[in-house]
């Protein structure tokens, strides 16, 4: 069994605060991490409110409860580290630095949205921030993550691609094909399984065959794997750092399973959200395993922040989110002719190729 390497075991598993990547954090950095998690939570809460007001279409998959996964892993990344995820994508988008305005506007289908109103909640993108989406088809992003890693290696860059996926997505064939290629060709991809215990209404034991955990399947491909407790930001960062270094130094893949929990239904329209799991289970997670509360407590214990300072930070974030909501509500819908834009690069760029032959068909 290849789980963690010797060098990595040297960290006292009980105290990830002592890991190098965490010891180097300044007080300001630690507050920054709290800010990022709070921004996600408040963004999601306002999104839910807007959804319930009927100004959003389609699906809304909330990330509330899972914030430490995106923030912890993305906070260690550098210029050549890339991110791709599934439809539960708001947390990752904000964590890579996308603006709240463009994200909120996208959910409302406005022209000012990050995808000009074309993608919606499930399809945020910002390649300038190394964020490659936002993908609606379960598991569809897993070969793309592999491809980003391939591209990095091809270009001779020391980087990685963190490809996020759910505990249900691990049963898509494309993921297994990707694992094999990643191992065979030594590609710097990190598959982060955000194990929130459910794929829609299906518990893991009803969807996945495994020995002990989902990440352990990587053994079959000779890929190093690990599991992390997603309520502990220090642990997420420490373990993600191991994966990142493995990608940077050795161009090797990792499967990192992170235990986490979603407080809301699969999507906002999940009518069964409280049927396939007990309200007590949800309450227990909120009360004892909330990544944001636990981090706040840590910051207070470490003397980094006081409760009052946390309160103030939270207030400023709430203001930021409310302003973003107003921005989105005030923004215009895209013009009808934009339906035909962004389909072909050659057409949009008025090239010879784009004007040779007919590209679009009327009725």
């Amino acid at each position: 069994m290849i789980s963690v390497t010797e060098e990595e075991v040297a960290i006292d598993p009980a105290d990830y605060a002592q890991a190098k990547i965490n010891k180097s954090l300044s007080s300001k950095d630690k507050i920054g991490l709290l800010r990022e998690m709070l921004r996600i939570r408040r963004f999601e809460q306002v999104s839910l409110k807007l959804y319930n007001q009927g100004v959003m279409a389609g699906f809304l998959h909330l990330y509330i409860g899972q914030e430490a996964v995106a923030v912890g892993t993305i906070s260690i990344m550098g210029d050549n580290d890339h991110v791709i995820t599934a439809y539960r994508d708001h947390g990752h988008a904000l964590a890579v630095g996308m603006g709240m305005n463009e994200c909120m506007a996208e959910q409302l289908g406005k022209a000012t949205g990050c995808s000009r109103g074309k993608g919606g909640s499930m399809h945020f993108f910002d390649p300038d921030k190394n964020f490659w989406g936002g993908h609606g088809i379960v598991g569809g992003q897993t070969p793309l993550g592999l491809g980003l890693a391939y591209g990095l290696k091809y270009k001779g860059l020391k980087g990685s691609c963190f490809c996020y996926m759910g505990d249900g997505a691990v049963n898509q064939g494309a993921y297994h094909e990707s694992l094999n290629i990643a191992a065979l060709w030594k590609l710097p991809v990190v598959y982060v399984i955000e194990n929130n215990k459910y794929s829609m209404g299906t518990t893991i034991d009803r969807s996945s065959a495994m020995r002990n955990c989902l990440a352990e399947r990587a053994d079959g491909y000779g890929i190093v794997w690990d599991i992390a407790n997603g309520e502990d930001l220090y642990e997420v960062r420490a373990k993600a750092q191991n994966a990142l270094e493995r990608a940077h130094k050795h161009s090797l893949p990792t499967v990192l399973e992170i235990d986490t929990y979603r407080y809301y239904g699969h999507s906002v329209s999940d009518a069964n959200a409280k049927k396939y799991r007990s309200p007590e289970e949800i309450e227990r997670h909120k009360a004892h395993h909330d990544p944001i509360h636990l981090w706040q407590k840590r910051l207070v214990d470490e003397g980094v922040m006081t409760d009052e300072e946390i309160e103030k930070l939270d207030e400023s974030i709430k203001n930021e989110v409310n302003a973003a909501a107003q921005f989105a509500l005030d923004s215009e819908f895209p013009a009808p002719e934009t339906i035909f834009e962004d389909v072909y690069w050659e057409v949009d760029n008025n090239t010879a190729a784009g004007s040779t032959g007919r590209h679009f068909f009327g009725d």
Partner: protein
Amino acid sequence: MPQITYRKAINDALAEEIIRDENVVIIGEEVARYNGAYKVTEGLWERFGDKRVVDTPISEAGFIGMGVGASMLGIRPVMELMFWSFAYVAWDQIINNAGQVRYMSGGRIHCPIVIRGPANGGTGVGATHSHTPENFIANTPGLKVVCPATAYDAKGLMKAAIRDNDPVCVMENTLLYGETWEVPDEEYVIPLGVADIKREGTDISFIAHGRAVITALKAAEILAAEHGIQAEVLDLRSIRPLDEEAILRTVAKTHRVVLVDENKPFCGVSAQIAAMIQEQAFDDLDAPVQRVCSLDAPAIYSPALEKIQLPTPERVVYKALQIL
């Protein structure tokens, strides 16, 4: 006659077929304990148990292919795709395996499988979730495809599909699941390949399938009320096999045709119908065949624009008036 929803009509068809034939088994994501993502299979697991109603992992290639394999041995799996858009990860199983195995085996193997689920845009779920692949399926000899527009048709066609000895793809519509129509209590089956006149008319023919039939009916009402024009609405119901005679009959009657199709125009179902009409009924036509399809781009998310991307009654009326 009782009024029931499109959803309930399919649910009844599944229940009746489970009872009628011990080889019928419902398989798909969240179909059992969760009652189906769109509640089409509601109550079936409770009534019929684990053997007949089976939840799967999110492994469409695996479980659709499994259904094809089981059907070769005489099982009659009714596979639910939560969205037909997810069929694309199982395309090899549907097209190459279900679609070709009878031919490749010289007729020694057949696949009595049904693959069903919603295939429509218009719900704000974006390009990857809004596909209407009936034209792709119809382009594959070996496969059959039906697109019911009403609860009555959904029930009758579903039963025919389950009893059919070839692979049948049933494309439903999430926007129709909650709509109600009259459906008799008595058992009935609608054969595949029989179109249905949903509205009699003399001046022009609207030919459509799936939810586009509803759009065409609305357009016909507008034409009657505002212009005194009587449009006939022909619902194809089944795309392959196709009721060519019904198409030719309505063309011979009205001499003018608007095809209404939620497919994209290029190589969509309506392109085939248009070609067929000019080949076989050229002399009956008093005007060129017109089409109203989805606007030719991926499905846009923005709720404001998605509405106009799909065929609307207004666009149908506009096209009709151009040839009247």
